[in-house]
């Protein structure tokens, strides 16, 4: 347990020194604010475009606050996921390629501890960045669009966090399996996309798929719903995350360094 905290602290410090603790939350905050702000200013922007015939009335239905937050989650679906994958694509392969993993793993540190310290650091940054961004989105939506229920916000925050945890873990595992960081990012993004498509194509067979998390998060934002099906999806996601961590540990165990 002691070595876990030592390594976890090292990971946090590294993310501070390479500015991850600043730029990732900043980007999530900017992404979060963008949705309510553009929604609010959309009529003005359109009017300002000026190529409307004289006297034309622009009718844009003002969306509900909860809809705007659901749209924010869609923003995170693309750019947010991309940023998480890109920031953690070298989390294990980088240390293996440079040889620092070998320097650490010849000390009495278990391979599981090594992977878990990195995974926890990934989770910490993701959680902080997403919560901050989503909270800013809530704040702007409340003042610009209309009040949003707190219950739906918290539920969707939690469900979406699990989705990001899933994507982040996928990235960690890819970087434990593959040598190239680019390959790891590509694999993680590809797997995420395939999962999303498969989940929408086969709703019956994939009823509990983690690919459902994004939809469930948006839905619970609007309805405040957290039913049995949600529980199953969450549960299965955790099981898969645990499996992926185990795979990462085995991959590292079988090849802790390149030059052998």
């Amino acid at each position, binding site marked *: 347990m002691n070595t876990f905290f030592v390594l976890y602290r090292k990971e946090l410090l*590294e993310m501070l*020194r*390479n*500015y*991850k603790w*600043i*730029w990732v939350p*900043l*980007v999530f*905050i*900017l992404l979060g*604010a963008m949705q309510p*702000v553009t929604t*609010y*200013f959309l*009529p*003005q922007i359109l009017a300002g475009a000026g190529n409307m015939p004289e006297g034309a009335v622009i009718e844009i239905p003002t969306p509900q606050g909860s809809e705007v937050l659901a749209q924010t989650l869609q923003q995170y679906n693309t750019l947010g996921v991309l*940023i998480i994958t*890109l*920031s953690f694509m070298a989390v294990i392969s*980088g240390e293996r390629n*440079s040889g620092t993993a070998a320097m650490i793993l010849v000390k009495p540190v278990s391979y599981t501890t090594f992977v878990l310290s990195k995974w926890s650091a990934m989770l910490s940054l993701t959680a902080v960045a997403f919560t901050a961004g989503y909270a800013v989105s809530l704040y*702007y939506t409340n*003042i*610009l669009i209309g009040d949003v229920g707190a219950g739906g916000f918290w539920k969707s925050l939690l469900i979406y966090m699990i989705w990001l945890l899933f994507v982040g873990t996928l990235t960690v595992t890819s970087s434990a399996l593959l040598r190239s960081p680019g390959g790891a990012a590509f694999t993680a993004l590809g797997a995420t996309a395939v999962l999303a498509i498969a989940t929408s194509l086969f709703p019956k067979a994939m009823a509990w798929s983690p690919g459902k998390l994004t939809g469930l998060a948006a839905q619970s934002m609007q309805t405040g719903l957290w039913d049995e099906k949600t529980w199953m999806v969450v549960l299965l996601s955790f099981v898969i995350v645990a499996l992926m961590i185990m795979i990462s540990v085995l991959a590292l165990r079988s090849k802790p360094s390149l030059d052998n």
Partner: protein
Amino acid sequence: MDQITNEMLWTIIAPLAGLQFLLAIIALVACARAESTRGPKWMWVLIILFVNLLGPIAFFVAGRRNE
């Protein structure tokens, strides 16, 4: 919807513009302090300054060679 007042602009847009500015500044600092970058530093400075939001992100993700 009403006209945008100056005050609203100030309270809504200014903090966001400030954050973007902060992001660009931090990217520039990181660029200046990096041991080596992929491609010339002046190119990254231009990208960070002129490509909104994505410029600094691109630098943080791909700009630096092993810290």
